């Protein structure tokens, strides 16, 4: 009898000790999800996007550097972000309630609209992109990380996942992204206050970068230098 009780007691202990699974995102890149995310109606999306104009800009370029541009983004990547806002796996005071108010169909529609917007410059728009050109030395630091990464420290080149050289599924393009936003996200990944990257790639990479490198990378992308294939800009 005693042994039975002891056994039961230790079972409870084990059960309460085991940490619950920490899930970064409920999204998986299954064929069904990819199909659902890619089947949006861009025209209907353009009507829904009226609600987003105010912050993300009428042409998908935000007037505030800490708010992301959405023009020309990969459909799957912004679809995932909206799903993560909806499930509170990515925290953001403005975006969580907005994403919650969208139906799955709305999400597919609005992302297909933003993905179609061009990234050409428009002087009549009040966008902040592209920002100031970084100083040459800092641009070179960033270009090296974007193009080659740092093999010694195990940092893969940004462009091998974020494009334009290669895109991994669900990875957002950074080519036309605002610098302040890029920096904020890198800081948040490094401190793990943004934790919705599946299998930890960005939390790992951002933590391996130095503070200075994160700033240089944000300036690089924010200045539009990511729009050129980075192989060439590295040596300039």
């Amino acid at each position, binding site marked *: 009898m005693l042994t039975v009780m002891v056994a039961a007691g230790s079972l409870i202990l084990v059960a309460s000790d085991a940490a619950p699974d920490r899930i970064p995102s409920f999204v*998986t890149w299954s064929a069904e999800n990819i199909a659902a995310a890619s089947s949006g109606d861009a025209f209907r999306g353009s009507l829904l996007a009226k609600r987003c104009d105010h912050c993300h800009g009428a042409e998908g370029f935000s007037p505030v550097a800490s708010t992301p541009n959405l023009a020309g983004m990969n459909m799957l990547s912004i679809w995932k972000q909206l799903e993560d806002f909806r499930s509170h796996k990515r925290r953001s005071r403005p975006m969580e309630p907005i994403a919650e108010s969208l139906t799955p169909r709305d999400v597919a529609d609005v992302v297909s609209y933003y993905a179609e917007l061009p990234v050409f410059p428009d002087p009549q728009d009040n966008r902040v992109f592209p920002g100031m050109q970084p100083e040459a030395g800092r641009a070179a630091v960033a270009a090296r990380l974007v193009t080659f990464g740092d093999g010694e420290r195990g940092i893969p080149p940004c462009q*091998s996942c974020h494009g334009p050289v290669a895109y991994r599924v669900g990875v957002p393009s950074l080519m036309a992204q605002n610098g302040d936003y890029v920096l904020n996200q890198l800081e948040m990944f490094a401190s793990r206050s943004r934790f919705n990257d599946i299998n930890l790639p960005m939390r790992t990479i951002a933590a391996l970068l130095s503070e200075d490198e994160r700033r240089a990378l944000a300036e690089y992308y924010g200045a539009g230098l990511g729009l050129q294939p980075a192989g060439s800009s590295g040596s300039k």
Partner: protein
Amino acid sequence: MNWRKVRIFVFTLLALCLIPATRYYQIDEPLLKLLRGSNHIDPLSLHLSGEFVENNLGTEQDADGSVTVRMIAQQYLFVPHCILVPAGVPVHLKITSADAVHSLTLNGTNYAVKTLPGTVSLAELQFPRTGDYKTVCREFCGAGHYAMRSEFKVVPRDQFPALRAGERGACVLQ
């Protein structure tokens, strides 16, 4: 019987055998397991459930003094990026891939573990000496392959932290 046709058929068959014959080294344990259908794991949902959820990655202390290390290989990283293990104890490595074929190779040792999406590779390691062992991916896996490196930090047994159930060791305790 048309011997000419038979000869051509047999010769073609032999020629076709040459292709796998030159690639036999790729047909190793995980692939055989995959073919047998055992040990299956969904590479797309490692983060949702099962033993490769993120808080179960890293080094686990086993009751018999050995440790179990769980890792994910993906384009173009091994996670966790720095693994902490004690010297001189058996290390049971369990690694799977989230995408392509990779190969975790530990510099300064003879260990190389191939990973395939859909299967768990098991390897029995042991590090007699302390130190930092760099790992590299030795299976070309795409644009960032050559930067796919990480590290095993082997510390003396008495410096390895005492892990409670549910706690996983990494270079920074997570």
